[in-house]
């Protein structure tokens, strides 16, 4: 197995610090304004793994797109290492719920996409194989995406971002469509990749257990328009276990923050 990123010694240097300051955002649909984010503020430390937890459709994914630089917030500022984000950048990469691999490209060509777009493919072609190796897809390098299972496709999507050595990984419910077994496997995999490569991770999820298993801090959002209604630090060592008493306590705490105590 080959590590793609610099060794974890310079982890603090490699991960991006993300600052979200008073961000509000809205969409115009049929002449009506649809508010999706309301005065959202938080900070993610370099190399941290945090989760944005909230009900489906509350606006978390929109926030992720803003951090990726795909859209600009109507109000407020978002910064990476103190620099305002004004557009997309290969240091901040998104993984969507759908793998959205290009069906006309083989797995290898999909993974090579970022290097190709930036004209680095000639010098750094070896990184493509390393990334495929990292997610365990070397045997499927020359296969087209429609021949892959859901889990394998999502691995390929991960390799497609990891090959670019990102300092911030934005995960938009990347495991949402997978069956529960594949999902557990991929959770462990994500954790391993993050621990090895030391990028900052922001995971959007509506799965309380997933947030608890993976992240160091959970930011809880309200229904749309999304506001931050609580922050819970997860002070558990990795790997975490669902039946750990502290895990159970934290889960109760999180559900209470979400206003779901009656679910217990």
């Amino acid at each position, binding site marked *: *197995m080959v*590590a793609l990123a610099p060794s974890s010694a310079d982890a603090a240097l490699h991960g991006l610090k993300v600052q979200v300051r008073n961000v509000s955002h809205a969409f115009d649909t049929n002449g009506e304004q649809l508010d999706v984010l309301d005065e959202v503020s938080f900070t993610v430390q370099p190399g941290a793994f945090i989760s944005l937890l909230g009900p489906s459709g509350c606006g978390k994914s929109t926030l992720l*797109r803003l951090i*990726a*630089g*795909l859209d600009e917030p109507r109000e407020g500022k978002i910064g990476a290492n103190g620099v305002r984000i004004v557009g*997309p*950048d*290969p240091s*901040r*990469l*998104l993984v*969507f719920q*759908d793998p*959205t691999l*290009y*069906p*006309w*490209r*083989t797995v290898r060509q999909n993974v090579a*996409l*970022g290097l*190709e*777009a*930036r004209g680095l493919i000639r010098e750094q072609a070896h990184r493509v194989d390393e990334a495929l190796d990292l997610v*365990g*897809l070397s*045997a*499927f390098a*020359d*296969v*087209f995406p*429609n*021949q*892959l*299972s859901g*889990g*394998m496709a999502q*691995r390929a999507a991960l390799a*497609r*971002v990891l090959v*670019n050595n990102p300092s911030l990984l934005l995960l938009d419910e990347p495991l949402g469509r997978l069956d529960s*077994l*594949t999902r*557990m*496997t*991929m959770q*462990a*995999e994500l954790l*391993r990749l993050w621990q*090895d490569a030391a990028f900052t991770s922001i995971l959007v999820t509506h799965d309380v257990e997933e947030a608890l298993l993976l992240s160091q801090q959970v930011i809880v959002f309200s229904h749309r328009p999304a506001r931050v209604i609580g922050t819970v630090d997860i002070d558990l060592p990795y*790997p975490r276990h669902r039946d750990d008493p502290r895990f159970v306590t934290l889960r109760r705490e999180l559900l209470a923050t979400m206003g779901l105590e009656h679910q217990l």
Partner: protein
Amino acid sequence: MNKPVQVQTDTATPTDFTLPVEGGVPADGLVARLREHVSVPVAGLLWLGAAAVSAAWPDQTAWSRTTLLAILQAGVGIGLVGSALFLARRPVFKVISEYGLWFGALAVLITAWEVLTAKTGILPLPFFPPPQSILEVYTDDVSRLLESIAHSMLLLLPGYLLGGLVGFTAGVSIGWSKSVHYWGYPILRFVGPLPATAWLPIAFFFFPSTFSAATFLIALSTAFPVAVLTSSGISTVTSAYYDIARTLGADTRFLITKVAIPAALPNVFVGLFMGLGSSFAVLIVAEMMGVKAGLGWYLQWAQGWAAYANLYGALIIMALLFSSLISLLFYVRDRMLVWQKGIVRW
């Protein structure tokens, strides 16, 4: 590295995905097996029978190519019987046997045609020429036919390629750029439905030669469907593909050439197929109306002389030619869109 063991569970072996089915539809049961092995020799015997009918049964009025017809029929028959005897284990026989019933049916059909025309005269001349008279067209009028084929292709191919290129470029521009779409799309929707042949009188008037006018019309008839389908293909590319590429550092040029165009390519080919079909129509009409050469002109000329054998002969050539061109386009498409099948077949 301390990788958890269960991580591997999702990583299956490379044999885990869909495998191609060898050699098409598998023969199932005795009937299919019988058909595969018996149809070819039986068809061969039928062709030999057809040859016997042609040679032994005297024509009502002597045709010069009856002997040649009998020789050719005998040749096909010997070939079929021979392939069943000597090539039965070769892959090529699989292909022959797949069409075994067709070979047999053709022998019966041609014999019936021969009997009803040359041998008994039940179907009257000049509208129902016998098979040997069409053979006569191919042996005696070969130079005129070859010249007509060459003329038609020299008119069709440049026009089609030009139209495909123009339509593709226009389609990409209209599908990609909002301002080009604003001006271009209404024109496409308004003028596009006009059949290219409707422009014929005007084109012959404006262009210096009938050849250039016809090339323009063939290009026009190809360009419209290609442009419409390309632009709709480009504009319906899912925005997630662009988001991915933009975050990975792609510029506009990359987005167009490496994302939009490959994503729209299946649509482009639908347009190219439609364009090819309408370009055939324009070609033949243009050759009948003004261009004094080509297969369309040959049809017109043959009709003028009431030479029905030449008409049928030319129609057969046109069918072969145009279906070959469509097959060629299918081949190109399958090569370029190999990812759609999910199975790599080189």
